[in-house]
């Protein structure tokens, strides 16, 4: 479980996040949704420690991450897997080397053990016989899957996914969504997904926070998000004409 309490964050005098509190539950797919520029990515970067919060606390389990020094944070970070928007695979490493990377850095496994673990993770994301290819030689969907395999290689307790479906076709998006959902349940981990893709939210969203102009505007699940009478959420969920036409039928 991850808790954020009263988080404030600003840059150069501009307030980006205002007093955000939320609990990301273990074993669930927790979504942070909102329009572009609403502060989703900044919030995520605050949670994983890429940005320092101005006020408030980030708590992993019982540990107050935001108050820790670099050395202590390192231990928590070893429990974090992250899937970046653009996959963030290392260009100079092959598929299997990318997955082996965190193991090479932090584990005491032998080379063959690392390779076995990497192959297991790649198999888990349905990616076989691509070991020696480089990121530039595989499709965007495959890159996401490699990134997921890398994120789960160290058996993390926390999985962060920043826009996991960006740049993917609808069918591949569903495959990635389901994969994230299955992994969350299988390993009983706290998964945080940052997205503005309503298809994903409706597919696997269990615990959802909507951010509007840097503030927590709403929280609930995928069933309540379609029925809420909150104006801003309505505009976000039913942004397209097609969705608006569906709203009338709901």
């Amino acid at each position, binding site marked *: 479980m991850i808790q954020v309490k009263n988080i404030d964050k600003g840059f150069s005098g501009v307030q980006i996040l205002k007093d955000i509190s939320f609990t990301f539950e273990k074993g669930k797919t927790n979504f942070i949704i909102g329009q572009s520029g609403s502060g989703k990515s900044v919030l995520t970067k605050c949670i994983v420690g890429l940005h320092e919060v101005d006020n408030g606390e980030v708590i992993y389990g019982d540990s107050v991450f935001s108050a820790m020094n670099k050395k202590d944070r390192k231990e928590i970070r070893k429990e974090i897997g992250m899937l970046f928007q653009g996959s963030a695979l290392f260009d100079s490493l092959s598929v299997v080397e990318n997955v082996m990377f965190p193991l090479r850095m*932090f584990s005491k496994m032998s080379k063959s053990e690392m390779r076995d673990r990497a192959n297991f993770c790649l198999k888990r994301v349905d990616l076989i016989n691509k070991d020696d290819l480089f990121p530039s030689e595989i499709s965007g969907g495959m890159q996401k899957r490699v990134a997921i395999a890398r994120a789960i290689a160290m058996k993390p307790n926390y999985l962060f996914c920043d826009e996991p479906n960006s740049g993917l076709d609808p069918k591949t998006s569903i495959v990635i969504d389901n994969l994230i959902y299955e992994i969350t349940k299988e390993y009983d981990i706290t998964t945080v997904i940052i997205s503005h893709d309503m298809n994903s939210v409706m597919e696997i969203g269990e615990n959802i926070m909507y951010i509007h102009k840097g503030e927590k505007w709403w929280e609930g699940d995928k069933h309540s998000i379609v029925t809420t009478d909150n104006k801003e959420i309505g505009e976000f969920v039913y942004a397209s004409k097609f969705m608006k036409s569906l709203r009338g039928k709901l």
Partner: protein
Amino acid sequence: MNFFEQIGRFFLMLKLAFTKPEKGSVLWGSFITEIYKIGISSMSLVAILSIFMGAVIIIQTDANIDSPWIPAYTIGFTARQSIILEFSSTMLCLILAGKVGSNIASEIGTMRLTEQIDALEVMGINSVNYLVLPKILASVFIFPFLVILSMALGIAGGGFFAVQAEIVNFQELTYGLQYWFDPFSITYSLVKTVFFAFFIAAIPSFYGYYVKPSGGALEVGRAGTKSVVISSVMVLVINLLVTYFLLL
């Protein structure tokens, strides 16, 4: 960011770079890779430049010696001094600052842009130490070898051309090349090179690492240009300082 803030940030980056690495074996692997990328891949450029410049130095020296009172072996002597003292260290490092510097800045800058550096940080890895330290160590290690190679090829290439073009005969050339030779000139050249190598790797790493992700490819391009300009100026400044302290 003003000039002094940039200098402060540069030294903070160096402080992060020179911390204990996560794993010695990983640093060693990266060090070997960087030696190949920075050094071995530059060898053909170094060889071509040195051979041609050696020949040009011989021709220019010959063209500027009109007096019959100046012995022919002076050509070999002058060419050797020019190559060892300035060309193979300073001029070559200026050229390598362009090749190696732009490569380092664009590589690290692109990693920043594509969130690869963020990925390292989230994993709990000191990204500066992981990315920058092997480049600095590899440069400092391999540049002196490149300079020695350049000296050898510059003198050999120039000498070969001089004999073939009958600018000077072989005996006079070899006499000139050995005439009044002070081994300290090689030490001086290599000392300069070590300083050059450090800044040629560190400055582009700095500009690449602090690329603004929002700036996109344009920002990476700017970082590459800036790093080449600043590291070239640093090479010239260090050249002056080391020469002043070692030769004066």
